[in-house]
């Protein structure tokens, strides 16, 4: 993980500055107008990814490898705790043109 990447969550910034921290981070991804921002994010095993849906539509974050399937209601949030390392591509089941990628390191 390089410090060049910026995230809205201050908690993640703290996590990056203190890589030895035992606390798992929460990575926030905003979903607005059918776009995941950031579309590509880095995380560590044990971190929580939280999608914040600003659309009036229901979305999902569905891992293509079947690892997880997160429902994100309209104007609601959805979370998943990452359990495995690896690169996971995900999409929205309702709008398959919405995609994203998480790179999970041990």
């Amino acid at each position: 993980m390089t410090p060049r990447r910026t995230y809205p969550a201050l908690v993640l910034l703290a996590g990056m500055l203190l890589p030895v921290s035992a606390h798992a981070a929460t990575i926030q991804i905003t979903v607005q107008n059918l776009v995941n921002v950031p579309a590509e994010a880095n995380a560590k095993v044990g971190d929580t990814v939280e999608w914040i849906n600003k659309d009036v539509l229901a979305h999902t974050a569905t891992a293509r490898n079947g690892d997880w399937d997160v429902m994100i209601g309209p104007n609601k949030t959805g979370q998943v705790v990452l359990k495995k390392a690896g690169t996971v591509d995900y999409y929205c089941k309702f709008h398959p043109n919405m995609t994203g990628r998480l790179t999970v390191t041990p």
Partner: protein
Amino acid sequence: MFVRLIMAVAALGLMTGGAFAQAKLTDPQIAHIAYTAGQLDIDAAKQALAKSKNKEVRAFAQDMERDHTAVNKQALALVKKLKVKPEDNATSQALTKQAAAKRAELAKLNGAAFDKAYVDNEVAYHKTVNGALESQLIPSASNGELKSLLQTGLKIFQGHEQHAEMVDSKLK
């Protein structure tokens, strides 16, 4: 099927640049067409929910009903805010007529035949509406907020088109 779709598109005057291009649409007309297109897909979904027993098809129809209802609610809020009164027009009327004919055609089918025909039509219908949004409705919209709502609508309906294609590929 394909020829009929082309004819339907042409008849709707949704093709730009060709012989069927019509005079520039006004914002009240565009708002009416967009709202009507959504409502017609809600009606199609209701028919599918009343007739289909296929789990995937029913889930898809529920998604269509939910999404198009949410988008149309946003559209109504916007036209109210802009004090635009949606205006009925030839394109809305042609869309409505086509959809009524399709509903009557689907009403005669049952089981797997209905499921396939409904989902096929969902693919075709979203393609037609998306083509019209891209080539005509979005470029013609004058108001920035209306244009922006139509652009978001296009992304949503492109998603629906892909979703319908995924469901379609699972049907025999």
